[in-house]
């Protein structure tokens, strides 16, 4: 079965969506990613959508669901690389991607993940 690869790098998972996903493939990614967060004890998930030519309400909901599920599993999600035309269309469509953190590119996304995970580690140390 067709699948989108999930790469593990230290405590991070990296996903680059490079194909025009049909809805079932998007659902499979969501399932695979949540399973992998637990299996790999990941603290951060970075999803690169720079190859995506559109984000419609289904893909938007998938991104929001992944962010929500990973949060519950104690991992942070950042979506990076949204094309300007996609951003314009998304807002006009009426999607605000509530709860989804975004960054301009992979580099900034990784930086954001590192900062947020470091911040949470400090909180944990402070409350202990």
């Amino acid at each position, binding site marked *: 079965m067709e699948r989108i690869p999930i790469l593990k790098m230290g405590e991070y998972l990296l996903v680059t969506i490079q194909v025009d996903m049909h809805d079932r493939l998007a659902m499979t990614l969501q399932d695979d990613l949540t399973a992998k967060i637990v299996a790999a004890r990941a603290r951060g998930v970075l999803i690169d959508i720079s190859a995506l030519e*559109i984000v419609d309400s289904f893909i938007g909901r998938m991104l929001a669901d992944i962010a929500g599920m990973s949060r519950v599993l104690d991992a942070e999600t950042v979506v990076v690389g949204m094309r300007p035309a996609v951003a314009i269309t998304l807002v*006009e469509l009426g999607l605000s991607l509530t709860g989804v953190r975004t960054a301009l590119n992979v580099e900034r996304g990784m930086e954001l993940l590192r900062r947020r995970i470091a911040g949470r580690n400090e909180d944990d140390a402070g409350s202990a």
Partner: protein
Amino acid sequence: MPVLLSEEHQIRQPEDVVLVRQAVRQKAVELGFNLVDQTKLVTAASELARNTLQYGGGGTLRLESLVDGLRRGLRLTFADEGPGIADIEQAMRDGFSTAGGLGLGLSGARRLSNEFHIDSRPGEGTRISITRWR
């Protein structure tokens, strides 16, 4: 209004929604739409194709290139013979969904188009057409 060219696509399974997106993109490029307008057309088509599949039990998309004086346009007509929509006004509202979606399909597609027409009768099916002018 003169229709220059017309073609039809079947929407029977989830993979067809992807093919519809590709066909609309190709047509929009051919007609010279800019990247933002292409993206709006493809996104609207994706929403409506999914609706056709989920609510209408499958159907067809007709793509038409339009000419109106100096203007060029692309009209997309989605038709199904499904259960139809009982309350169109309610279905057009943001956040209304019967299939657990976000309820942005119809209202979102309308916002992404210049013209929007919907014709639906319970038990007979639904026909939605959107047009974007260049």
